[in-house]
């Protein structure tokens, strides 16, 4: 029901900040993540940071397709 995207907090001043979504710099409200600092990964929903993410876990999630997906040669579809 709720789209939220991970981003990196690149600016913060009081309850306002800017989050970087891979090259898209989005103004965000940070009042719900008082602990989030510049450089932290955060989760953004409707222009609000709703969570400071754990750094290692966030990076794992973003790279997760590479980590979890394994090519299964027996499943190669010859018909393509």
């Amino acid at each position, binding site marked *: 029901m709720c789209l939220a995207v991970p981003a990196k907090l690149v600016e913060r001043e009081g309850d306002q900040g800017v989050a970087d979504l891979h090259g898209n710099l989005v103004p965000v409200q940070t009042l*719900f993540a008082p602990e989030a600092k510049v450089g932290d990964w955060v*989760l953004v929903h409707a*222009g*609000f940071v709703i*969570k400071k993410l754990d750094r290692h876990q966030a990076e794992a999630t973003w790279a997760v397709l590479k980590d*979890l*997906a394994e090519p299964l040669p027996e499943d190669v579809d010859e018909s*393509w």
Partner: protein
Amino acid sequence: MNPGKPTIRLKSLKRLNQLASEVGRDVAFMEVCGTHTMSVFRSGLRSLLPKNVNLLSGPGCPVCVTAQSDIDMLIALAVDHDVIVCTYGDMLRVPGARGSLEKARGDGADVRVIYSSMDAVTLAQESPGKQIVFAAVGFETTTPATAAAVDYAKRMGLGNFTVLASHKLVMPAVTALLDSGTVHVDGFLLPGHVSVITGWREFDPIVKQYNLPCVVGGFEDEQIPEALVDLVRLVGEGRAELINQYPQAVAEHGNPSARALVKKVFELADVRWRGLGTIPGSGLVLRDAYRTFDAQARFNLSQPKDREPKGCRCGEVITGAVTPPQCVLFDNGCTPTNPIGPCMVSSEGTCQAWFKYHRVGVPKRRRLASMRRRDPKTGKPSVLEVQP
């Protein structure tokens, strides 16, 4: 033809198939989040699920569960009053008794699509002569943004900003659904982003009182199958537990500062849900201290009668009682271009997801050997280059 690159398959899918065959009976899980519904369709996961694993969509799309009367009130406000209505894009096309906000805009009403509640507040600050009404919908994830906007408007003393709020809570709806006895599921895929705010403890009663396994899931392609693996495993082991498969974002008690602000601005109320009727303590209304920001009060709006479109089974669809094709209107008068019920409007509505991604039964893939073509000049079979 050789694809050059094997299709990516997820470990968790293999595991899911193993576990599902070990369970050896049909199992059904309910996802209580429209974004999960969307993801399941969009990633093609539905086509990969084991035959005996069934996913039911629950009341997880805020647009779809909004009572018809709330939508009618919003449209009446846009049409009959000299206001600017700010809405998330999700609400624009939802039909009410008098058309949609989109139609109202075409007829001259001032309706603006915004991305954040604070955009509406900014508009109010920039347009002192106009009344700005924010159509606030959403579950726990979205409510803090409305609370922040209202609280800010109060601190700034903004006299031209109000909200027409129909915020709802997930857990009371799930409880009502389980108590109704109409839905039989073996477990719940819990909404990841709602849980970011509420914390996973919020859903403990499903495990403790209803003895059903629950998994909090994320939304990436691989996170949903992972959550399903846990659910099937728990069912197989006969254990009712709550597993948090989205620890990157979800903590036990959620986001305390967001919950505190919501509690400061809103109080619990009995509200109407499409298809579920009035559920005690399932919605939020502004507290007395913030009542001046209530659009219903400021514009003296009366609650119209709840008249749901004739023949529309959205109410049953959002409770998982029927699947969209069981509704006679589905693809038969009700389509995304001409929606009758909200489940066909919202891009995360169950009906639209079915219509868009699943409407036509996709037959088993055929081998294309017979269609392989030869270069007429060289007589060589066609070979595609290998993608880098």
